[in-house]
């Protein structure tokens, strides 16, 4: 059974590219365009991995990450943060909030897929 990945990003074109890449790699893909939507999608159908942009409308990626980790049922959910702000602080903050990995935009498609694969393989 293929793994499910939730893409949470507000940039439509980025979402399109991620969707294409992940589907091509054989994952089941869900899409959310803001933080709130992402949480709702997770509640509806918890994915194996969330590809989470930091700068999300309504609810930021950090908030979403925190909410996920607050829920005992979602402790094993992999979270890969995705951001255009590549500063050290942001990376540390994300990891501290419970993210498993951090990828900066613009990303290399190969690396992105490798990272996701690695995260899901850990389980």
């Amino acid at each position, binding site marked *: 059974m293929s793994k499910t990945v939730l893409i949470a990003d*507000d*940039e*439509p*074109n*980025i979402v*399109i*590219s*991620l969707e*294409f*890449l992940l589907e*091509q790699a054989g994952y089941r893909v869900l899409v959310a*365009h*803001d933080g709130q*939507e992402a949480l709702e999608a997770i509640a509806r159908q918890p994915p194996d991995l969330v590809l989470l942009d930091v*700068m999300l*409308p*309504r609810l930021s990626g950090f908030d979403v990450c925190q909410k996920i980790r607050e829920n005992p049922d979602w402790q094993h959910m992999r979270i890969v943060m995705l951001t*255009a*702000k590549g*500063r050290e602080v942001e990376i540390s903050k994300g990891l501290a909030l419970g993210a498993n990995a951090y990828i*900066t*935009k*613009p*990303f*290399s*498609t*190969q690396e992105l897929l490798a990272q996701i694969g690695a995260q899901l393989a850990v389980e």
Partner: protein
Amino acid sequence: MPLGGLILLTSCAYLGILFAIAYWGDKRADAGRSIIANPYIYALSLAVYATSWTFYGSVGRAAASGVGFLPIYLGPTLMAALFWLVLRKMIRISKANRITSIADFIAARYGKSALLGGLVTLIAVVGVIPYIALQLKAVSSSFLILWQYPTIQMPNQGEALGPLQDTALYVALLLAIFTILFGTRHLDATERHEGMVAAIAFESLVKLLAFLAVGLYVTFGLYHGFADLFEQAARLPDVDQLLTLGGPAGTYGSWGSLIFLSMLSILFLPRQFQISVVENVNENHLAKAIWLFPLYLLAINIFVLPITFAGLMHFPAGTVDADTFVLTLPMALRQEWLALLVFIGGLSAATGMVIVETIALSTMICNDLAMPLLLRWKALGLAQRTDLSGLLLGIRRGAILLLMLLGYVYYRAAGEAYALVSIGLVSFAAVAQFAPAMLGGMYWKQGTRAGALSGLSLGFLLWLYTLLLPAFAKSGWLPLSFIEQGPLAIAWLKPLALFGLAGLDEIGHSLFWSLLANLGAYVGVSLFGRQSSREHAQALLFVDAFKVAGRGSSLWRGSASVTEVIALVGRFLGPARAGEAFAGYAAQRGLASSAELVPDADLVHFAEQQLAGAIGAASARVMLASVVQEEPLGMDEVLGILDEASQVIAYSRRLEQQSHELETATGELRAANARLQELDRLKDDFISTVTHELRTPLTSIRAFSEILNDNPELDPAQRARFVAIIVKESERLTRMINQVLDLAKLESGRAEWHTTALDLKEVIEDAQATTSQLLQEQGVELRLELPAQIPPVLADRDRLLQVLLNLISNAVKFCDREAGRIGIAVQVLPEALRVDVRDNGAGIDPADQQTIFEKFRQAGDNLTEKPQGTGLGLPISRQIIEHFGGRLWVQSARGQGATFSFTLPLGQANAAATDAGRETEYGV
């Protein structure tokens, strides 16, 4: 055996010895080996206090009032205990200021006032003349009595002698000549007379020995010691009363006033001032004098009562004047040598007093009375005379002669009215008037010249009225009714019971009123008056004598030539002495000769000191002012000093202000620095934001590029879609970079502006044309509401178009999806044009209405659907409108669309056209 010529011979021999001592003393002093520089000589010379008044008068007073003779000696004894405090300060002040007399002292203290010096001199002369008369009387009567030896006959009883037969006249003349030879052989800046002091010390020794000899002879020769004598004396009638207070010996009150009076006299009698202050060699001599001088007084008084009682027992009551007991007892007992010794002792007591007193007074008369007057008397041309030292000596010699003759006149006229002691007390009371001005001057800085003048004048007048005039009345010069009923029979003006004050003896009464008025006026006038700057400077010098070392003419300002100053001093001291003095002064400063001296304040001060010694402080100042172009220390000077002071104050204020400004500047710098740091942080944020914004399109571009690259077999439709995204995102990236650069240019003020007068209508229509394609695509309707006439505005055409395009594209983005409508309206306001761009979209939250003008902030941030755009359009538009001098703002309510409005100012179109032209020039 009549003594006759022997008396004359002995007297002349004695005076010869005195002169020899004086001559020797002066020689030794010139050779620099002073014989008077030891405390014993100093203490002995202080005993000039004991005059013939003591020598003969004590016994006379003891016969009348028993122990009542004592207060006159108790006072000085008490004061001696205070010498270290008071006299030492007087010496210190006088040395520092070259004070030559008590008149000089007071004048110098109160701003070198010539008027004050003159007044003090006048009081001293008037007050002391009776005292000199007293000495003449003593010498002449003792001479006449001894002349009759072996008969004992009181002189002048009922027989009137013509002046030429009067011994007193010859005594006066003889003493005058002697004093002139003694005291005025040459001028000295220090006004010190070492030879004279030596002679005076010798005289003190002689009179003490003579008196002790009589005392010893009477006590141990005539009787068997004190016990025997007093035992026998106890049988005399009324002797108890003589030995207890309350009766003839005086009340406690009169003792008090006499003690007080004599305490002041030992300090302020001109001769005491001369000997104890002016002639003092070393102030440490005071330490010994403090006990030696009272010891001397004790020694010379110890035999007073024995001699008195012996006299009273020996002579039948009333036959012999008790004032002469000292002389007549040895005579009666046929001890001619002892009698001769007593006569010499009396002579020494009298001559000592007369010599010192007249020298002191002549200095005062010359320096404080004659010179100031003569110098002011322009007709004499004294200021131009080259050598005045001869004139000065002449004045002093004349003064001595005059004083002696005045004494003689007083003696002839009033001398018979009083016993010796009473005359002396009149003088004491006169000099006691100096006390407030002197003591106040030494210890109270606020004392003023006016205060001293009024105090001295009042005190002196009251002294005249309550002591001297009654003395005249008793001598028959004034009717006795003046004393008994008061002038014009006004009882409360009775001179011996002024304002009804009765019950005091006349000395106590006079002292009370005169000193009360004197002190009251001195303190009162001083408190209500102001000191001149010079008075103030002098007051500090005097009162702080122990604190300030040296001179105080720091306020001196002026110009002088050294040669002129030396020549001036030479005129008074003689050129040779002046030359020596200045050479010494130059040597002290390490200069080779006086030619190298610089005319500064110190030099002028030194010259003034030299002159002060010769002509007094007040005159010296006047003289120096004639060669030194000194600004008179009047109002100008004071104002000058004030001005200087205010300049200093202004300067310090300026400093204060500068430091304040510095603080402000520092504060500003700190604020600027904080602002810079803030800007730096903002810049970091901006860059971080820009980076983020740029990364977003870049992410898409890279992702799709890689996808296309990795999937060559992608179907054409999808491929075309991905390529389109890449193109679109590239365009977005380009636009964003352009806008960032544009904004940076606008913000830094480096943007180019081509400002011209524009027709707004044209620009709006241009914008409409540019966006027609976009409007059509989105199905949005744009309506223009333009007035017929729009006045031209000053603006850069392209920039204004940029703003309009931005607002229109925003409106397109946010207007209603289905029936999008945009309206552009222009209003002509009195001072500006207003443009409204209205849409019919969802509107903007009030919370967002400010933030949308911030960089990279978009109203859609919280919306589910992210709006397209860079987030830089509105900030750029606002920058542009503000550059034109207008405003850009938004009005909106949720659900009712939004209206973006801006204004462009009118009215300056023409004025600013030139400005615009210049801007264009530079801009291109």
